[in-house]
């Protein structure tokens, strides 16, 4: 019994060890905030002078911002895959990084909403979407499901954390006073009793079930922003599943990158083991295979037929202006990582970090080549306009505004992971048999 107690105390201490303000944290947050401020200055220029400060014009009118929006929505889907799909099927090895996936989901979903506002020509009229909203427009569907997904993800994150928050604030005394005080408020007076555990478990279960169709909806609807038009390159019936499968790739890579840094910086080697990286590596290669399958469908089918309008866009991608980017993304961000990940040695932390970074960056540029090339080739010729209308080049201001979204996401992830146990404490204890789980699975 005593051994049990000591082990329990060790887990609690290990998993709350990082909840304190360190010098590293101050430097990192300082960097993020200064970076964000510079980028927000760029946005203030856009507010003053209009969207014209960006490189987008009348033909390529959706540029970096929309590509970035698609990427953000995509990455947020990983919360659904890990906590929802794998969690509901009772898979245990996700425990140490399920919360990481949920934090990523909340951060990316929240900022996706901000990114879409950055793209608006009249952000001052945002309320019109709710006042005059017409439900036949896919934008309304997108606003609805992204908001719902964000609320569900945030609730899921909070509800699964409430047991830990209460646990930490009653069982530990090494935390700074203000952390304990805020934990007391956040725990909502929750106490570790079988009845309350049962309630939380039931709520989480409902959320997990709800979050699956909702997550599928957000990315399917996002793909429909393109697929609902008649533009060659967007006019595709598989855009929904194509986007969803791609979402798991960028999200999976994001979780692996986060796992690596949390394990290293928060000294969690005992909890996030090499085996967890192995398993996550396998999951990544699985979703990448699915994505590869959809890529073959998306490009081979029109490339075989070469309908006039489709052929122009495909030509641009395969051997034209976007060829370098296209092949770099397809080979460096998809095919080579798949081959590498099939080797067991490559599914260890450091190689996985490098592969994941390549996949993550590749996923971002993949959205770029989905969004931009199609618009450079409308049905009718582009004439009598300046050269920069015909060929899209992002401006510095536009890049800075896009970077702002990354700073914001990193700030949210850093703050959430810094002030809350990044690995579920109670669940870990239960899994190690240190704590009796009073509730049997229904």
């Amino acid at each position: 019994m005593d051994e049990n107690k000591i082990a329990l105390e060790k887990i609690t201490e290990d998993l709350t060890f990082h909840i304190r303000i360190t010098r590293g944290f101050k430097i990192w947050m300082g960097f993020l905030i200064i970076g964000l401020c510079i980028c927000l200055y760029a946005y203030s220029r856009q507010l003053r002078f209009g969207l014209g400060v960006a490189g987008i014009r009348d033909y390529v009118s959706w540029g970096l911002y929309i590509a970035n929006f698609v990427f953000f929505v995509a990455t947020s889907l990983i919360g659904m895959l890990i906590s929802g799909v794998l969690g509901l099927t009772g898979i245990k090895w996700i425990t140490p990084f399920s919360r990481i996936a949920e934090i990523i989901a909340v951060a990316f979903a929240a900022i996706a909403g901000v990114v879409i506002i950055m793209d608006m020509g009249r952000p001052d009229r945002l309320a019109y979407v709710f006042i005059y909203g017409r439900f036949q427009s896919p934008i309304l569907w997108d606003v609805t499901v992204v908001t719902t997904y964000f609320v569900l993800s945030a609730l899921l994150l909070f509800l699964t954390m409430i047991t830990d928050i209460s646990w930490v604030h009653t069982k530990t005394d090494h935390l700074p006073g203000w952390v304990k005080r805020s934990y007391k408020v956040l725990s909502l007076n929750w106490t570790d009793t079988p009845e309350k555990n049962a309630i939380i478990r039931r709520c989480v279960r409902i959320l997990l079930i709800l979050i699956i169709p909702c997550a599928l909806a957000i990315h399917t609807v996002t793909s429909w922003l393109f697929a609902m038009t008649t533009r060659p390159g967007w006019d595709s019936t598989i855009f929904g599943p194509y986007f969803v499968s791609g979402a798991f790739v960028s999200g999976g890579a994001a979780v692996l990158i986060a796992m690596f840094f949390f394990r290293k910086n928060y000294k969690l080697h005992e909890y996030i083991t090499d085996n967890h990286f192995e398993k996550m590596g396998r999951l990544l290669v699985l979703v990448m295979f699915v994505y590869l399958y959809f890529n073959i469908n998306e490009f081979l089918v029109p490339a075989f037929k070469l309908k006039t309008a489709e052929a122009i866009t495909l030509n641009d991608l395969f051997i034209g202006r976007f060829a370098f980017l296209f092949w770099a993304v397809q080979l460096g961000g998809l095919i080579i990582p798949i081959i590498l990940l099939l080797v067991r040695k490559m599914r260890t932390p450091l190689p996985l970090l490098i592969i994941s970074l390549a996949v993550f960056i590749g996923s971002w540029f993949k959205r770029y080549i989905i969004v931009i090339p199609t618009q450079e080739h409308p049905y009718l010729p582009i004439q009598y306009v300046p050269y920069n209308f015909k060929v899209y080049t992002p401006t510095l201001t536009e890049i800075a505004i896009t970077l702002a979204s990354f700073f914001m996401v990193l700030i949210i992830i850093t703050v959430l992971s810094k002030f809350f146990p990044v690995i579920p404490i109670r669940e870990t204890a239960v899994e190690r048999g240190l704590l009796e789980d009073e509730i049997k699975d229904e």
Partner: protein
Amino acid sequence: MEEQPKHEQNQDNQDKKNHNPEDLKQLSRRKFLRNFGLVAAGAAAGAAALFSGDLFERSKTKGGKKKILLTQDNKLVEVDSLELKAYEKSPEEKMQIRGREGLPGRRWIWVIDLSKCRNARQCVAACQAAHHLRPDQFHINTLEMKENAHTPAFHMPKPCQHCDNPPCVAVCPVDATFKRPDGPVLIDNERCIGCRFCIAACPYSARMLNWSKPKFDDQDKGRPYNIELNIPQRIGTITKCLMSSDRLREGKLPYCVSACPNGVYYFGDENEDAVTNGTTKETVRLSKLLTEKGAYQLLSELGTKPRVYYLPPKNRLFPFEPSKQAEPKKI
């Protein structure tokens, strides 16, 4: 209340013993001022209450007339005339309402004869002047077209096709762009949020955004917004061809149609089966023109149902000359 002054007097008497006359004088003055202030405030409040009460009573007697009204659900109700207010719509509101309603009984239709176009671009100039556009903004543009390697090139004026099944209207999240019963697809730049989904959806590249401050922004400031002319242009909102709806209201032909020196455009009412040539002012039967010249529509396979017909460039009046106009500078 009666005891209070007495008590205070006692207090004063006591004070007299302790203070010199100068202090006493000050004390009593302060007290006087305080009491006076209280009385004055009370009197003012009472007077105000009486006055407003009187106003209310008088206003009651002024009304009294009952009016009988028919409500939307077919009920007769009696309403005091006091509750009815004359409502005067502002010029903006009037223009908004009539701009969204359109001209009853009309179905505007456009026919463009490609055999007559020699790329004079007078239509473009007239349009840009009328709608206060910059040189790179085209509600109408003349494009050099070549269907494939062995077919001849030709110039094609391309306005908005004012589709009967408009993809831009379908995707608009806020009802800023809308299809009017008499044909044109208009844009309300007081509603537009600048999401540019309509630009992405339009297969004819007929829509553009005011990416920065509009050219005539300062000059048009304060001018009531005319939805049929889309002036003043507004930053961050869409601008597009409006079929010159303001001219149609006056019974005139669109700006571009009237400006053409070569007789390219026919414009008219489908319900009357008649179209008028903008240059010669000759009116011809629409159905006959379309049949005889073998009219076609642009990208009709997309199901957009355009309201613009093209007559193919056969028996051309002018040889094809490529445009000599230099590419405009970067904006």
